[in-house]
């Protein structure tokens, strides 16, 4: 569409250029034509003047005034010879002499309305005198006089002295006729230019209307901020690396509507939007995201981490201090703000906005009138539970400090190691090991999670290659649904085709299955086509659903640890485990017992005929697989 618009512009300006070029060329042609006609006429006048002068010199000896004054017949004869030349082009032909006072007077007049002999004629003396003295013809432009175009002056030289001047006046009719002949062509250009001007005016008006309508479509009518339409456009073109995302929400806004009415609510929204607009900078972008929610993209330079946080605090304080007046009532409001400081870490802008919304939710949960950003929130949690920030995980990945531990899984009856479960760990700079619970959550929706999955897969395949042993990895169903991670798994399987049958994929997060089971099944089948086995982790807890046996190609069922760890004490656990094992046997699915933490539990597992077992009693996760 954009190219089509460009094409229209090119065509329009090409036509305009062509017409202008044609107009200039026509004007030039007109000038050349005029000049040529003028040249021809002057040449003709020159010939006539020369002939007249020759004729005069033939009849006049020395003093034309005296000779012509006395010889009326000669005068008439010479005038009649001038009359022959007189026509529409040469309007007046006459001969003047210069008297002793320097005035010019008629000797001969070839015009129809004749002047008297010796009658004085007021002329441009300066020019006529120059012809007299220089004895050279002169072309005098007569545009100042009505009806005359040019006067051609030719000196009559007798005995090397200028005795008179022949004047031939050109009528204005000729250039007028040329102009009249060309006028229709000029008119065509005038009409074309008028039409183009009109067209341009219409285009300008249309553009104005289009811009106006465009502005209306992307502006929220109440707050005059951008709306979601604009946001959709913005997300297509924005470089998210250059922004931090701020999600603002007016606390207890429903109370304002309920207590003071919707008009008051609208007033509060408008004024809040105004405050937001004044507190942010021109390069920031304010969008009304929902009812009382505003989304702000804060432009940052050189990855300033605290910029959005500082602006958010300023906004929060300003709103808190502002008295909103509506119909003599004073309303106080506060804002809760959530911030995504590093949107570049997220898989998509939508995820980054979602994260800002999650931070906003935390701000609400923590008592409202608060600003929560990724940095501040994580810092708080670190104090409580030692959680890693996105940057720390990223740094660990770059420094190859994301590693795998391997926990053996035993064949229950023989108690021989059958396979291993790969468990991701973060090795701190001091060498200590951090479990996944401390770093996975923060990176879950970011691109770092993809890199982390890739690292784990590569590490597992490296060990498979080295040891030729089965290793299972943990994935979520959402990972299978994620196009990037799914493709990453397929790529890894492609490049390790021969080792793929040693791999087992353990899946969690069953809740998403109901809507997407077909796609999951299709993708799992594809993974299985490499010889990979599919295991369901933590079965028997949470969202465990028996329909998954129909929907999915399951090879192994890992019974949830909460059932296994109580086998020796809880009858219910035993019965549930027993039924799961029975069901699995019937379906031809192998079973694995997790959390085998004591001899008693192992005995129960054996008794229940569970195929495989793992747990601290048998073996703890270890950094390397024994030879």
């Amino acid at each position, binding site marked *: 569409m954009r190219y089509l618009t460009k094409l229209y512009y090119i065509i329009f300006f090409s036509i305009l250029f062509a017409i202008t070029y044609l107009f200039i060329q026509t004007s030039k042609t007109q000038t050349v034509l005029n000049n040529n006609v003028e040249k021809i006429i002057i040449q003709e006048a020159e010939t006539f003047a020369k002939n007249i002068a020759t004729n005069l010199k033939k009849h006049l000896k020395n003093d034309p005034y005296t000779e012509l004054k006395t010889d009326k017949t000669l005068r008439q004869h010479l005038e009649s010879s001038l009359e022959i030349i007189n026509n529409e082009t040469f309007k*007046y032909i006459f001969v003047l002499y210069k008297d002793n006072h320097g005035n010019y007077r008629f000797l001969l007049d070839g015009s129809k309305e004749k002047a*008297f002999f010796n009658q*004085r004629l*007021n*002329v441009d003396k300066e020019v006529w005198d120059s012809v007299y003295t220089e004895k050279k013809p002169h072309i005098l432009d007569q545009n100042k006089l*009505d009806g005359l175009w040019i006067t051609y002056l030719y000196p009559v030289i007798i005995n090397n002295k200028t005795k008179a001047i022949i004047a031939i006046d050109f009528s204005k009719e000729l250039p007028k006729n040329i102009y009249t002949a060309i006028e229709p062509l000029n008119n065509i250009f005038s009409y074309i230019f008028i039409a183009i001007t009109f067209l341009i005016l219409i285009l300008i008006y249309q553009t104005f209307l289009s811009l106006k309508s465009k502005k209306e479509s992307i502006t929220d009518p109440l707050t005059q901020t951008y709306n979601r339409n604009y946001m959709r456009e913005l997300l297509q073109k924005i470089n998210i690396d250059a922004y931090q995302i701020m999600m603002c929400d007016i606390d207890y806004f429903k109370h304002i509507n309920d207590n003071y009415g919707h008009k008051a609510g609208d007033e509060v929204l408008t004024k809040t939007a105004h405050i937001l607009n004044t507190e942010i900078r021109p390069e920031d972008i304010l969008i009304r995201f929902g009812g009382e929610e505003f989304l702000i993209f804060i432009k940052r330079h050189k990855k300033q981490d605290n910029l959005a946080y500082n602006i958010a605090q300023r906004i929060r304080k300003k709103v808190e201090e502002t008295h909103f007046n509506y119909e003599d009532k004073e309303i106080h409001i506060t804002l809760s703000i959530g911030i995504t400081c590093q949107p570049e870490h997220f898989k998509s802008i939508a995820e980054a906005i979602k994260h800002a919304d999650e931070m906003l939710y935390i701000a609400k949960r923590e008592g409202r009138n608060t600003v929560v950003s990724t940095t501040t929130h994580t810092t708080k949690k670190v104090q409580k539970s030692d959680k890693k920030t996105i940057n720390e995980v990223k740094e660990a990945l770059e420094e190859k400090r994301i590693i795998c531990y391997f926990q053996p899984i035993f064949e229950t009856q023989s108690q021989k190691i059958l396979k291993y479960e790969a468990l991701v760990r973060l090795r701190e700079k001091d060498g200590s090991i951090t479990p996944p619970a401390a770093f996975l959550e923060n990176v879950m929706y970011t691109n770092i999670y993809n890199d982390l999955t890739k690292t784990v897969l590569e590490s597992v395949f490296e060990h498979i290659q080295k040891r030729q042993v089965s290793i299972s990895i943990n994935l979520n169903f959402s990972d299978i649904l994620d196009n990037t991670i799914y493709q990453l798994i397929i790529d890894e399987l492609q490049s390790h085709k021969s080792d793929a049958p040693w791999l087992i994929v353990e899946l969690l997060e069953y809740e998403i299955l109901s809507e997407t089971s077909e796609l999951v099944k299709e993708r799992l089948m594809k993974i299985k086509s490499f010889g990979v086995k599919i295991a369901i982790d933590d079965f028997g807890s949470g969202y465990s659903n028996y329909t998954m046996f129909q929907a999915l190609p399951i090879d192994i069922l890992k019974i949830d640890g909460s059932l296994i760890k109580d086998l020796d004490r809880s009858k219910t656990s035993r019965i549930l485990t027993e039924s799961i094992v029975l069901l699995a046997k019937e379906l031809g699915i192998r079973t694995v017992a997790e959390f085998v933490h004591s001899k008693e539990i192992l005995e129960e597992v054996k008794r229940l005929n569970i195929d495989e077992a793992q747990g601290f009693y048998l073996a703890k996760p270890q950094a390397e697989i024994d030879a």
Partner: protein
Amino acid sequence: MKKFLFALLLITTTLFASNLQTEEKIYALIIHTLLPDNQKIKVWGDTPHNKEILQNITDLQLVESPKDANFLLLDNNSSIETNALIFVTNYKILEKMQKSAIGGFFWQKGRPNILFLRKNLQKKNIQLPKSMQDFVEDEI
């Protein structure tokens, strides 16, 4: 300088105005030059055209009878006995009335021509400014 200005007036008026407007301006100049001291100049013309010209000139009072006028603009030969200044619009008439007319203004070969007759100027004791002396003729 004045001569130049007068010539300029002749040229520019002919360039930018119609012949009638040009004539009005020239006559206004001539009349105010010939009758500089008169507060209210009474004028008369013998043709509708001349009357129209005189009527359009400011500060002039067009009168019904030539006897009441102190400036006459004539297009025809006339034997009116008057002390008024007579100005004609035709060379032939000027020739015929060269004893009484003070001068004339007419178009000759598309050019505006002014003539003043020296004898009559002297009779009326009129001293023309230098800018107009170039148009004075001893006889025609």
